[in-house]
């Protein structure tokens, strides 16, 4: 039996904007994630996927329910690679920052690890001295992946890491994540609204509609025999394209 790396029980989250009434985003979310699996999280835009994973990592203040994380230093690849890289820092500086904070590395060791990680995610060495604004969307996405992997996390949360990219680069990034998963023994919570991407990447899948998880199971089974009407609708939308 493999170990459970993440256990979520009856999680609810709320947003409160000034002058508006509380918005209930995640509703009674309950699921488990196992060590070493890639778990897909699928749902339409606005269904609350980002909110859910941010809540898992303690970035949503107003929440109730139980979250049990059995992973050291879980890391996240943010959905928007434009706002998740500090615009005033060079890529090399950013990649070294987790090690700087952790401490116990010399400057040479840090730089060496940063260069190794750049290579691992398929980026050129000269990116080291570039600012985020000098990079393309795909390059930023790779930098985000590199940054998330610097601390060798056991759990990686990837929030639509390929949605903003064109198809060839999508495929490259997906292959990269699969390769890194094999090499580093990662568990990945993989968010997407694209069922085909999830089919390629994931072992199991959670289907989210309007803040609720309406269906979960092995990817093949869910795709072959969707139980919930919402899942059927999503699948039909894909096959008719």
């Amino acid at each position, binding site marked *: 039996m493999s170990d459970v790396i993440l256990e979520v029980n009856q999680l609810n989250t709320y947003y409160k904007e000034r002058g508006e009434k509380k918005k209930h985003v995640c509703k009674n979310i309950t699921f488990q994630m196992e060590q070493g699996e890639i778990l897909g999280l699928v749902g339409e835009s606005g269904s609350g996927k980002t909110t859910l994973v*941010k809540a898992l*990592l303690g*970035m949503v203040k107003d929440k109730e329910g139980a979250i049990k994380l059995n992973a050291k*230093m*879980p*890391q*996240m690849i*943010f*959905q*928007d690679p434009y*706002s*998740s*890289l*500090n*615009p*005033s*820092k060079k890529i090399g500086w950013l990649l070294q*920052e*987790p090690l700087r*904070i*952790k401490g116990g590395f010399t400057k040479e060791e840090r730089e060496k690890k940063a260069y190794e990680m750049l290579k691992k995610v398929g980026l050129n060495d000269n990116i080291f001295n570039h600012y985020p604004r000098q990079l393309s969307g795909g390059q930023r996405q790779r930098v985000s992946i590199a*940054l998330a992997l*610097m*601390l060798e996390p056991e759990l990686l949360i990837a929030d639509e890491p390929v949605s903003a990219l064109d198809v060839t680069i999508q495929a490259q990034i997906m292959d990269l994540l699969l390769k890194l998963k094999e090499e580093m023994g990662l568990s990945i919570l993989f968010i997407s609204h694209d069922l085909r991407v999830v089919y390629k990447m994931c072992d199991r899948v959670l289907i989210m509609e309007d803040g609720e998880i309406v269906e979960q199971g092995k990817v093949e089974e869910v795709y072959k025999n969707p139980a919930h009407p919402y899942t059927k609708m999503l699948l039909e939308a894909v096959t008719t394209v």
Partner: protein
Amino acid sequence: MTIKKKPNYNFIIGSILTGLIVALALVSLVYTPYDPDAMDAANKFAGISLKHPMGCDNFGRDIFSRVMEGTKNTLFVALGTVAIGTVFGILLGAFTGYFGGILDEILMRINDAIFAFPSILLALVIVSLLGSGKYNVMIALGIAFIPSFARIVRAEFLKNRELDYVKSARLMGAGSLRIMFVHILPNTFSVLASSVMIGFNNAVLAEAGMSFLGIGVQPPDASLGRMLSEAQTYLFSTPSYAFFPGLVIILMVLGFSLLSEGISQKSV
């Protein structure tokens, strides 16, 4: 198609003016044509000549030397004022903007109350408590400038703390102080730079105003504002006495305005 870039005249002219005035002040540290305080009865109200390019004042002191000295003092006070205002403004703005909550509410209400006074009025009150003289003027104006810097910095921190790069830094394990001063602060510099420039101008004018009123820089130190005040009596008999210090103040303010304008154009 190539877009031809128009030269940034604001930046060029601003840098030249500012450079000249800073050079004038720096040179005065090691050299002035005459001792700025040396009185010479024979040269009372001497006109413009090669020996005294701006003439002499009512004590026969060389006005050019005094303008150099005064420029130095005025710049020094303005620099000190802006330094005090920015350092404390950054600290206050960073903590209130980043942490928010009750501390933020209280400090910002106090801030608003102070901000409601014209800064020169506030500085007058503080100087009347501390006494006059260039260091007290610096402290008084500096305190009066804190609220406006704190506001700007706070607004930037409020905006930045919600961005994903800050969440990402937190995931890396960065502590609050590190996030505030290493990760967020540099992203406020472009906004801060232009308000520092504007603040600098206000400081120059405020110092001149206070010295003009006789509560700023005290004799024997020269300051541009004091010179204007001393020159009042002789405005018609010896206009050059008031003209040159006034001109330097105008050029100084103009130079900084153009420079800050030019910098904000550049960063667009």
